[in-house]
């Protein structure tokens, strides 16, 4: 894993893009528009949005483990410390406002 890849570092606050477009999207709907933080940088991977259609997957995209507080996602009473962690490619992330 190339841990120096990408523009974000562990601890950076990020917001998932609230976008919709046709195609093979790996960013689940429940997390779009939500804010969390970079837990881990996984390095660069071929882009599945391209691979799914028989293309070369290039340019590679940096993949992050992004953590979210469960309470921020579901807005209801859940375990106070509980987190959901999602593997998200860099082009789906913006710096959190």
């Amino acid at each position, binding site marked *: *894993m190339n841990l120096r890849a990408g523009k974000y570092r562990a601890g950076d606050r990020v917001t998932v893009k609230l976008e919709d477009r046709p195609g093979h999207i*790996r*960013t*689940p709907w*429940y*997390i779009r528009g939500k804010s969390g933080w970079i837990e881990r940088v*996984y*390095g660069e*991977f071929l882009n*599945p949005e391209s691979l799914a259609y028989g293309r070369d997957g290039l340019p590679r995209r940096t*993949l992050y*483990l992004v953590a979210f507080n*469960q309470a921020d*996602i*579901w807005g209801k009473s*859940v*375990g*106070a*410390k*509980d*987190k*959901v*962690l*999602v*593997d*998200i*490619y860099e082009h789906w992330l913006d710096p959190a406002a």
Partner: protein
Amino acid sequence: MSEGHDAGQTPQDHGHEHPKHELSHYAKRIYAIRDLLIEKGVITDKDIQCQIEYQEARSPANGANLVARAWVDPAFKARLIDDPKAACAEMGIDATSINEFVVLENTEKVRHMVVCTLCSCYPRPILGRPPDWYKSFNYRQRAVNDPRGVMREFGLVLPDDVEVRIHDSTADIRYLVLPLRPKGTED
């Protein structure tokens, strides 16, 4: 695709068995694709059989062996966490098909659970084929929005001060949760 693939027809005479019950749309489609690939010489019946045998040979026993050894061998546990694919190779488990393999270690204060809310991504080299419940809409939805409820149904009730970490396996990473060794199993 021959008419014989529809339900209620007699067994086929082209070398392989077909299910006798009503086939779903997707099953009909996959049998049609299989027959076309064979007819056009892209693959053979033997290739399919070999692949089925390879898939069936990978079982949750592989993951259980990794976990059990990690419980009794601290040096192996360190290697498993540091480089899971190399640790698999050491145990004779072929994990080369996994792009990146990450171990999540449970502690008294942190428990992990894995889901793929998009489909059925699963660490097949160490756990075999994903069970139907793992692929069900119900599990995929509730694992993220009611993980403690799902755990309770599996028989695990966690105190409020334990942190539950749900990993949504949406990309190239495959996860192995390393559970705590059950109390009372020491030598």
